[in-house]
C-alpha cells in the first residue's frame, strides 16, 4: 500500500461571479469529477421549496393543484437549507414536517376588490421566517423591463375572487422534485487546445482565409487586420462542432488546424435560480460531494471492498 498516491489536487479559478451566475475553471481533474460536481449542483444541493399547501379559499380560475404546483416552483432563498433538517428525519416534529427545524410556514391572503385584474405574486406570500422568502429579482437592475418589482406571478384575480392558503416549505433536493433544484443550468465544457498549422495556413489566400474563418458558426478565429494572419480570438467559443476541420478538408487542406480537448480542464458555467447564490451553490455542492464520498468510505461495503480490491479499495477510502 505504499505506492504513489493517485490523488490529484484540482484547482478552481473563478472567472466571473454574480449572484446568480458564475463561470469558473476547474483544472487538474478528470471528467468524472467535473460531471459529479455538475450533477450534485443540479440535483443534490438542498433548497427550500413549498411542499405542502393547505387551501382555505380558492375562487380563482386556477384549480387547487395548479396553484399548489405553481407555489412549489417559486424559488425561495435557501441559505438556511444546508443547516436545516429534512422533515423525514426531523426528530423535533416526528417527521410531520411542521416544526421550525425542518419547515417554514407561508401565508397567502389575497382578495380582489377592484375592477382591475389583480396579480397575485410571490410578494404576496408572507413567510414565518425572514431568511426564507421568495427570491426577489427586482433588485437586479438587469431585469428592469420585465417586472416592476412585482415578483413571480401566481394567479390573476378578478373582482370578488379570493385566494387564501397556508403553505409549508421544506428542505429537499432536486433529485426528488425539480422544484428543489437550485440550479437553472450547470454545464461544463472541455477547454479546447487549438493549433493552427501556420505553414499550411499561409498557403491560403486572404479570401480563402476569410471563408475558412467564417465557416465556424461561433467566432473562434479571426484575421489580424494588420498581418492578415489567422489567429485564435476566443478558443472557448469553439463548440467542438468540427465545422472548421470539415471546411479545411473541403478546401483540400486537411490538418490546417488541430483541435483537441484538454482532458483535465473544464470551464463551468453555473446559473442559479436565486435560491442559493451561485458561489454558495458551488461550495455546497463540494460539501455534499464530500459527504457522499465520506458515506462511501465509511460504509460497511467499502470495508469489504477494501479486502476485495486491495489497493483500489484503499484508494477509494482516500488512501
Amino acid at each position: 500500500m505504499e505506492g504513489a498516491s493517485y490523488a490529484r489536487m484540482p484547482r478552481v479559478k473563478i472567472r466571473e461571479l454574480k449572484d446568480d451566475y458564475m463561470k469558473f475553471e476547474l483544472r487538474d481533474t478528470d471528467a468524472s469529477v467535473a460531471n459529479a460536481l455538475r450533477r450534485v449542483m443540479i440535483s443534490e444541493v438542498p433548497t427550500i421549496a413549498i411542499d405542502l399547501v393547505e387551501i382555505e379559499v380558492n375562487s380563482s380560475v386556477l384549480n387547487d393543484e395548479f396553484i399548489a404546483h405553481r407555489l412549489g416552483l417559486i424559488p425561495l432563498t435557501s441559505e438556511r437549507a444546508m443547516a436545516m433538517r429534512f422533515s423525514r428525519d426531523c426528530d423535533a416534529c416526528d417527521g410531520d414536517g411542521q416544526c421550525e427545524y425542518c419547515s417554514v410556514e407561508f401565508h397567502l391572503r389575497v382578495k380582489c376588490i377592484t375592477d382591475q385584474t389583480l396579480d397575485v405574486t410571490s410578494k404576496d406570500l408572507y413567510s414565518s421566517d425572514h431568511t426564507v422568502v421568495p427570491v426577489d429579482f427586482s433588485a437586479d437592475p438587469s431585469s428592469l423591463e420585465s417586472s416592476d418589482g412585482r415578483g413571480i406571478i401566481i394567479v390573476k384575480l378578478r373582482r370578488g375572487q379570493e385566494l387564501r392558503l397556508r403553505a409549508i416549505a421544506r428542505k429537499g433536493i432536486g433529485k426528488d422534485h425539480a422544484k428543489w433544484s437550485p440550479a437553472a443550468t450547470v454545464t461544463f465544457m472541455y477547454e479546447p487546445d487549438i493549433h493552427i498549422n501556420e505553414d499550411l495556413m499561409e498557403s491560403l489566400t486572404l479570401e480563402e482565409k476569410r471563408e475558412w474563418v467564417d465557416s465556424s458558426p461561433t467566432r473562434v478565429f479571426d484575421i489580424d487586420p494588420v498581418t492578415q494572419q489567422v489567429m485564435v480570438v476566443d478558443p472557448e467559443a469553439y463548440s467542438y462542432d468540427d465545422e472548421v476541420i470539415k471546411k479545411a478538408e473541403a478546401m483540400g487542406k486537411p490538418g490546417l488546424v488541430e483541435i483537441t480537448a484538454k482532458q483535465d480542464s473544464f470551464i463551468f458555467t453555473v446559473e442559479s435560480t436565486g435560491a442559493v447564490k451561485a458561489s454558495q451553490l458551488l461550495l455546497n455542492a463540494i460539501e455534499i460531494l464530500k459527504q457522499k464520498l465520506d458515506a462511501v468510505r465509511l460504509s460497511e461495503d467499502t470495508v469489504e471492498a477494501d479486502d476485495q480490491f486491495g489497493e483500489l479499495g484503499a484508494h477509494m477510502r482516500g488512501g
Partner: protein
Amino acid sequence: MVIKKPGHRSSLDDANFDALRDLLKPHIESFDHMIDAGLKTMFIGIKPLEVPHPTQPTTLKISMDNPKIFEPQKERGFSKSRNILYPFECRQAKISYTGTFTAELCFQYDNGPIVREKFNFGQFPIMLQSKLCNLRGASPKKLVSYKEEASEVGGYFILNGLERVMRLLIMPKRNYPMSTVRSSFSERREGYTDKAVVIRCVRADQTSVSIKLYYLRNGSARLGFWILGREYMLPVGIVLKALIDTTDREIYVNLTSCYNEKYEKGKGAVGTQLVGERAKIILDEVRDLSLFTRLQCLQYIGEHFQPILQGLKNESHHIVADAVLRDYILVHLDNNFDKFNLLIFMLQKLFSLIDQTSVPDNPDSLQNQEVLLPGHLITLYLKEKLEEWLQKGKRLLLDEIEKKGATFEFGRIADVKKVLEKNHTKGISTAIENMLKTGRLVTTTGLDLHQRAGYTVQAERINFLRFISHFRAVHRGSSFAGLRTTTVRKLLPESWGFLCPVHTPDGEPCGLLNHMTRTCRVTSFYDSEGNIKDYFKIKLSILNILVEIGMTQSLPKIFLPGPPEVLTVLLDGCIVGFIPSTEVEKVVAHIRELKVSSAAVIPNDMEVGYVPLSMGGAYPGLYLFTSPSRFVRPVRNLSIPSTNENVELIGPFEQVFMEIRCPDGGDGGRKSPFPATHEEIHPTGMLSVVGNLTPWSDHNQSPRNMYQCQMAKQTMGFSSQTIQHRADQKLYHLQTPQTPIVRTRAYSEYSIDEYPSGTNAIVAVLAYTGYDMEDAMILNKSSVERGMFHGQIYQTETIDLTEKGGKSDQSARVFRKSKLDKPCPSIDSDGLPHVGQMIWPDEPYCSTYNEVTNKTYLFKKKGSEPVYVDYVAVDTKTKKNLNKVNIRFRHPRNPVIGDKFSSRHGQKGVCSQLWPDIDMPFSGTTGMRPDLIINPHAFPSRMTIAMLLESVAAKGGSLHGKFKDATPFRSSVKKDDEESGSKSASLVDELGVMLKEKGFNYHGCEVLYSGVYGTELTCEIFIGPVYYQRLRHMVSDKYQVRSTGTIDQVTRQPIKGRKRGGGIRFGEMERDSLLAHGAAYLLHDRLHTCSDYHIADVCSICGSMLTTTFQQPRKRPVREIGGLPPARAPRKVTCHACQSSKGMEKVAMPYIFRYLAAELAAMNIKMTLKLTDGVDI
C-alpha cells in the same frame, strides 16, 4: 422581450372569428333559411286536407299557414315575464335548447270564409347561433358574459344537455339527369337493361322525388318512380302524351332532332340512326294500347293509380292522373311543357348512352353530387310529420262524427279545434327533437333518402379541432359503409379543392367520411349580402341575358335540335333553350364575367356547367345551376383583369371542364390551345382546416399527414374556455399549453391560438439508454415536474332524483346526509361533497335520503384513482327541494409511463421512462437538456422531413424571438411581394442561416455530453424544439390487472371487462403459442390454476362425477376433550348411483369440465371417467 404573435389579440374587442364562423355557415344558413322562408314554402307544399262530412254535404278544408318559431325561453309557470333561455343553462340542466313552434290552421267550409286558429306544436329544437338563437349577433365580449366561448360558433343543437351536430350527407345532384349503368336495373323486370337515366328532382320545399328512365332491350323506355315503397314503371310514350297535347309526329321529330346525318360520327354527335327506330317503338307501344289522345293517356294513368294514391278514391281518373304527373314525375318543374321537354332530353341522353356516344356519369364522383343540409332535412321531415298529423286529424274528426253523431257539431270550429288538439300537437316538435337526438328518421315514405339512421352525431369537444371537424365532415352515407367494393371510397380528381385528400380517417370509414377543404363552401338561399335569393327573378334575368347573347328560347311546339350543332341549355333542370355550339364558349365566358361582377343579377355562386362537345365523352350541354346545397369554392378568373373582383365561385360540376392553374406562375404543362382560364388562390385551399395545421406538410410522406389529421383530433388541449360552466361527461384539459413556434397561416386565420393543444418541447434525436426503442420516448423527469404536459380530465356526474329508479316513491327522495350512519367526512350535511375535496375510489360522494322508507343511498365513486371535486352545480328551478345536481370531478393526469404523445407529423410514441434530468445528455455550450428524446429510427422509413424542418425552424425562431411561418407549398405560389423570395433557394438554406447567425450549427446539430459520464457523445445530436401534442390515450384509462377477482357464475372462469375488474382472455392462439414453446407448466397455470380450478369427487366405480353427493355430517353432541376444539370430521362423499361411499376419488379439473358433464347429462348423455393412478394407462 415581448413577442407579438401573429394571431395575437390583446383583448376580446379585437378578436376576429369571421373565418372560423364561415366554416360552419352551411349549417347555420340552412337552418336560418328554414326559419325565414323554408317553413312557409313547405306549408304551401302541404296539400290542404279535405274532410267531407259523411252524411251532410259540407266539406271542411284545412290548410296550414303562418308557421312561427320563437326564441328559446324558460318555462316559468305563472309569471308572464319573458325569460330568455341561454345555451349554457341547457347544458348544465341537461335540457334541450328549444323554442315554441306555432302555426295557424285555416278552416274553410265549402268556399266559405277562412277562419284561422293558432296551434302550438311544441318545443322545436333551435340551432345555436341561428337567427332564433339568443346568442346571435352577440359580440365576443357579450358571449363571454353569456358564459359561452368568446368564439362560440354554434351550428349544433343542445338536446338533453348534449351537443349534437347534423352530419352533412352526400346526395345525388338535384335536377340533373344522370346516365347510370347499374346491374340491378336489369333485374327489375324481364327485358330491362342495366342502363337508365336517373334524375333526383327537388321541389322548392326541399322534398325530392327520384325518377328513373330505364332502357328496355326492345328499344323502348320505361319511366320508373316510387310510391309508398313500390316502384311503378310507365311506358314513356304514355307519359309524354299525357303531359301535353301532342302528336306522334311531334314526339318523333323531337326525339330524332338530336340526330343529323351530316354530323354522324363527328365530334359531339350524340344521336344515331337508331334513335328514329326507338322513337317508333315508343310510339307503337302507346298505339298498341290504343291510346291516341292526351285524354286517353290520362284516363289510362288515372285508372291504374286510383287505388294506389291516397285521398283520391272518389276523384275522376283525369284528376288522379294529373296528381301523378304533378307529384311524382319531374316534380321540380311545374309546367308540363318543361316536363315534356326534359323527358325528351332524358330520352336522348339515354339513347346516347346506349349507343355509346356518351359515357355514363359516375355517381361516386363529386361532379354529380351535392350535400344534404340540416335545415333542409328538418324541413322535409317536418313536412312529413305535419302531413301525417293532418291525416290523423282527419281520422279523428271522422271518428268523432261517427261516435257522437249529432251532438258533435261539425260546423263549429271550436269543436273541430278541440278534436284536433287532442291529436298530440306537441308531438310534432318532439318528433324533430327525437330525430336530432337519435339521428334516426321514423318515416313511412322514406323521404327519398337512402338511410334511416346516423343523421346526427354528438359534437365531441375532445379538443377544438375535433369539434370544428364535425361541421366540416361530409359523409357518403351509411349505406355505402357496408359495401364490399372500394369504388365509393376512392379519391377522385373531381373532388379536388372541395374535399380534403388528407383529412379522412384510416380504416373502416376511410374515404366515406371526408372533410371539406378550407375554402369549400356550400351554396345557400342567401346571397352574399345575406338576403334571400329570389329564384324567380334570378331565372328571368338569366334567361334575358342568355337570349341577349344568342340563345334561342325553347317554346312550346318548337323542336329541340341537339348537339353538335347546338347545345341544350338547362337551368336547374329545366330546358330553357339552345345555343349554337360555335357561340357557346363566348356565352360561357360572358356569363362568368357577369357572375363575378357584383352589379349583375346573376348570383355569384351559379354553376356554369359547360360540357363541351367531345368524341363519346360526357353528354354535352350547358347546365346552369343556381340551386342551394351545392359545393362551391373560390378561384381566380384570369380573364377578368381587375385585382379584387376576379374571384369566382366554381362548383365541382363545372370544374372538371375548366382549366385552372396553380398560382406558381407557370402554366402547369398546358398545351397552347387550352390556356388556363382560372387560377387557384392558394394551394393550401385543397386541404381541410386540420390538414392546414401541419407545418410544411408538403415535405412529409402523405400518409403521415393523414395520421396527423387523426391525431390532432385526439390531442388533449384547451377543449373549451368555459370549462367552469360546462357539464360534459368528459372533458380533457391540458394545464399549460403553448402556441407553436412553427406555425402555418391557418393558425392565425382560424384563431387556433384560442385553443392551443401542445407544447414546444426540446427534442433530441438519439438512441439513448435503449428506452427510446420502437417509438418509445423518454421524457425529462424535471421537465414534467415543472409542468410539461400536465393535464386533467373533467368528468361530470349528474344526479337527477326525478328520473332515477322508476319506483313509486321517487318524489320522497332528497339530498341529505344520514344522521344515523357512520360519519362520512366527504359529504356535507346537504348530502353533497365539498368543493376541492379529494375522493378516493369507492368513497361516497353524494347521499340521498328517502323520507318515506327512511333509507339513505350513497353514491360511490367508481374508478381506480383519487379525484377532486371541482364543482357542484345545483338546479334551483324548484324552490322546495333540490332534485338535480351536477358534480364535476377533476382527475389529475400528469404524464406517466405509458402515456401517448405525438408531434404534428404523424409521429406518435409512448413515454417509456421519466428520466432524471441529470442523466439526460446536455449541451456543453448552453447547458440545455432535452425535454424529450426520440429514436432516430423514427425517420428513415417514415420520411417526415417536415418534422426535421420544424425542429430547425423552431430553434432558429426561438433564437431570433420570432414565429416561423410554415405554410406548405410556399414554392408553388408566385412571389410578388415576398422579401424572402430572392434568397430562399431552398428552405433549409433559409433556416440554416438563422441558426448560424446565432452561433449554432447550420444543420441543427449540437455536440452533447453524456449526462451520466460527462463525456462527449460520439455523434453530433440533432436537437431543437418540436411542437408535441399529448394524446388522450392514457394508461390510467387502459391498464388492466387482476390476480383473483370476480368470476362468472356459470363457468367459474374470470369475467372479462376492465370496468368490472376482469381479466384478459388467454385465448386459443395464445394457448397455441405456449404449446409451441412447450411451456406446459405455464399453460397449466394460465388455463387451470388461475382460471376455474376445481376439485371434483369422482366415483371410480361408476365413473360419474355428477352422482357424487356430499354427506352432511350428522349433528352429534360435541365431545370436548380437554377444552380442545373438536377435530373436523372427514368429509364424507357418497355416490348416489352406487349407494356407497367406496371408491371416491378427488380429481382436479377445470370446473367447465363438470359443467360440460352436466350439460351432456341434460341431453341424456352420460360421461364416465376412468380413473387410474397414471401408471398403466
